[in-house]
Structure formats: C-alpha cells, structure tokens
C-alpha cells in the first residue's frame, strides 16, 4: 500500500514537472546577426521572436487536435499549407503526433531591405510523440536547427517558412 502511494506521488511529481515543462520551453535569444541593410528595431525583433514562439503553441495544438484551422493565426503561405497537409495526412491514417518544444536558441539572421520578411534561425529541442489510434508508439527527442521566415500581417508576424536543416 505504501509502495503504491509512493508510486502515485512520484507520478504526480513527474506529471507536475511535465506540466510545467509543457507550459514553458526555455528560450535563449542570441544577438541578431542581420544580413541586410535595414536596421532592426528592438521592438520589431521582440515582436518577431514573440510571435514565432507563439507559433509553436499553435503548431502543437493543431497537430494534437487534428485541426488545421488553429494554424491560421500564426502561419501563412507555404508553411501553413505544408503543416495543414501533414495534419490531413495523419488524420487520414488515424495517426496523431504531439509536439512539445523544450528549448529554443533563436537568432535573427536576415531582415529584407523592404521590411517584408525576417529570417531567423532557431536551434530547437523538442519531443515528438506518435500515436496510432490513440495507442502510444513512442516519443522521440529531436534536436534541430530551423530556418524560419516570418512576414508581417495586420496585427502580427506570421511564419511563412519553417524548415529544419539537414545534418
């Protein structure tokens, strides 16, 4: 009985830890190393990184709930289309994936001269859990460098390209 209680407590602690981890990934922002003539205002940089990090929440929710419409707020263009395609794929196969970002190391690398795009690189640590008909198949930790292009919309920056680099 005591043993059972101990297991429960450990489980609860682990759950709480997982919950905290779910809510907040660690974020490190490197000083911008901007390729381009346009000066990058501090507020713009902050807004871009904030909107980009929020996009991971949308991405995670969209894959988790099989709802491509949840991408609309933060993704646009090819990035939105490709993510939506993946959600359609998994939905058709009754497969589901859960993405949980753990750490980001972000650096702005390009600000196009006309101000209509910002490219950043993000070295991300995240977990992917795969399930088939709600049966867990496994969770894989992934470490990857992403190249991300964001473009401005009426209220925020939205992700237009989200691509992990090979190797």
């Amino acid at each position, binding site marked *: 009985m005591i043993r059972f209680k101990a297991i429960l407590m450990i489980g609860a602690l682990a759950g709480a830890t997982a919950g905290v981890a779910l809510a907040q990934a660690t974020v490190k922002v490197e000083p911008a190393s901007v390729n381009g003539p346009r000066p990058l205002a501090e507020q713009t940089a902050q807004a871009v990184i904030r909107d980009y990090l929020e996009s991971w929440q949308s991405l995670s929710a969209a894959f988790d709930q099989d709802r491509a419409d949840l991408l609309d707020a933060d993704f*646009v*263009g090819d990035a939105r289309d490709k993510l939506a395609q993946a959600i359609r794929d998994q939905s058709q196969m009754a497969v589901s994936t859960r993405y949980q970002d753990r750490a980001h190391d972000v650096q702005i690398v390009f600000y196009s001269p006309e101000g*209509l795009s910002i490219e950043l690189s993000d070295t991300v640590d995240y977990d992917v859990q795969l399930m088939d008909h709600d049966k867990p198949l496994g969770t894989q930790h992934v470490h990857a460098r992403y190249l991300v292009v964001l*473009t401005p919309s009426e209220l925020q920056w939205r992700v*237009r390209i989200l691509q992990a680099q090979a190797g």
Partner: protein
Amino acid sequence: MSDGSENGGAMLAVVLIAATIAFVVIGTMWPTKAALAYTGGQGLTSSSSTPEAAVQNLGDEIRASAWQKAYDGLANKAQFTEQEFEHDLKGYYPSLRTYATLDRFEVFPLHASDSDAEVRLKLYWSSVVGISEGTRDLHVVRAGDRWQVEWPIVKKPVVPPQVIPVNYLRWDVIYRGAGDDWGAQDVEAPHVRIVDMRPVERAEGVVILGELLNEDVVPAYVSVNATLIGKNQQPIATEGSFDKISHLLLPKQVTPFLINFPNATLADVGSVRMTPFSTLVPASADPVIEIDNEKLNPAPDASLTGQVINQSGQVVNVAHVLGTFYDSTGHLVWVADEYLDRALLPQTPESFNIHIPEDLARQISSERTIVSTYSSGGSV
C-alpha cells in the same frame, strides 16, 4: 344578475366612457411630445392668427412633408406650382437636400405692420452627412383674420445649351486577384506626407489640425489617424479624420485634415502619433471645381464665403468645401468645412459660407479652399 347596483353600474359605465372620451380629447388637443413626433409637430389647434404663427404652421407642414397643405396656405401660390414649391425646398436635382428631412426650425420676426410682416425662417435640415442650415426671409400678408406667407420661390436654374468637352484624365488600377501576394509583383500605395500638423486645445477637447500632401504621381485615397500618447507613454485615445479631409488626392494635391478628441486635454498629452493611410484607387481628374470670390469675413459671424463653380458637364450631387486657415506667419490656425446641400450644375455658381470660430477669426489672415465632390452619375 341585475340588482339595485344597476344604477350605480350605469353611472360607472357613463363615467368610464366619458373619461375615455375626455382623455382622447385632451390627448388630441394637447398631444404629447412622443405623439407630436409623428405629426410633424402639428396638433389640431394650429392657427395663423399672427405672422409668426403662420410661419410656424408652414414650418410644421414642411417638417411633416405635408407639401399640399403647405402650398395651399401660401398667399402667392398662383405664381408657381406645388411641385416647384417642393423642388425649391428639396432641390431640382438629386442632392443632400433631396433626401433630407426638416429636423427643426426657428422663426424670427423682423418687421411687422397691420397688413404685412417680415419673418425669418431658419430651417435645420437633417441630411445623411449632418445638419445643414437654410434661411428664408418671408413676407407675410394679412388675409382677413389670418396671415399667409408669400413664399420667395427660387425657380429651377436654367443651364444654357452648350458643349463641354470631357477630356480630363483618368487612372485605372488593375488589382491582383485574391490570394497570397508575398513575393509577387505589386504596385505599392501612393506616397503621402503630412506637411503640417498642430494640436489645438478647444472647449470640446483636443483637436489635431494638419495638411497632407500626395507627393506621388498617382491618385491616392487617403485618411489620417492620430493617437494621443500620454506623458506616461500610454496611448490616451485614437481617432480618425473621418469626413474632415478630402479623401481623394490627385498627384501633388494637398488636403487639410482635422481630428477631434472629445473630452481630452492637451495638458495630459505627451506626444501625438500620426498615421496616414493611402491606397491606390481608380480616379478621375474630373470634375474640376473653381472656387470664386473667396472672402474672409471678420467677426462677429466670422466666416469664409465664396462660390464654387462646376467647370465640367456632369452634375455634382454633393460638394464638400474644406477651408484651411493660416495666420500671418503661415501657420495653420483652423480647418473648417461645409457641405453644399444643392447640386452643382455645370457653370452655375453655388455659394458657400464656412463658419469660423470667433476666437480664432482674429488670428486668421489667409486661407486655402479645396472642394471634394460626390456624383451619382448622369448629366443635365
């Protein structure tokens, strides 16, 4: 069931019926405000026993759009038809006045004798763009025991037969269809610039005055927003120029703008953030409007008066005159406007009168006037 109480019952019936009739009579003889709203302000007890009462009745009838009744009561109705009378008030061509309703009116006696009188009738028309005023000085004559109005009819203006070539420029825009436009050929918005801006404190709040220039080579559809930023760097309020601007600017054209911030005080404002918007739109350089005889009239009743002349062959249904006022050093002092509620016919002058606040009139030494127009199509 009838018993000794039948007499009392009969009395009750009589009392209730009598009271009902009395209430109806009272309500009809002295209608409530809510009821009067549906009669154009007229009760049953209108009489024309004085010159003012005759004009008051006429005003009520115009307000109720009771054209026939109003026309029938005129002393000089033989000089024009009922239709001409109605058109005189509502316009011969579609204009703001055509669809306006008389919101209220005021009657001012000017002169009176036993047989005739002069009475001023000030009419406040409710149009889609706001209240517009009109004044008629009426000659009222005695006819037996009542008075009748002689209506100073203004007959339909006659435009002489002529040929007016329409050869002005027009810009068309080919828009991209719906869809993602990133990284595709685009035509950007026209370049506009705020060339002057000044915040002013007025009794009703803070007013932002300014001028906006289209410095591009294409027409621009413009508007200006202003945000008052408090001394703590927090926004206080955001307002737009709304109709106190000429939204269509041809290349190198300048418009004044005025933005109202009711209930704000300048003392609370740390800075003002101006946001001009411009969009590329199809436009025509026609009609060209000439502004003649502009004159600054000093206080009291300070105003800018003049005439606008439509140099094109197209009827302009609504004209909006915007005046920009400067002091002797060329600084912006005020922006004011007036809608003309009569259509502008080709080559036919139409007067305007823009009111200037008395306290500012003394500072004003020069002005610039522009006209924006609305046409629903068609020519004379």
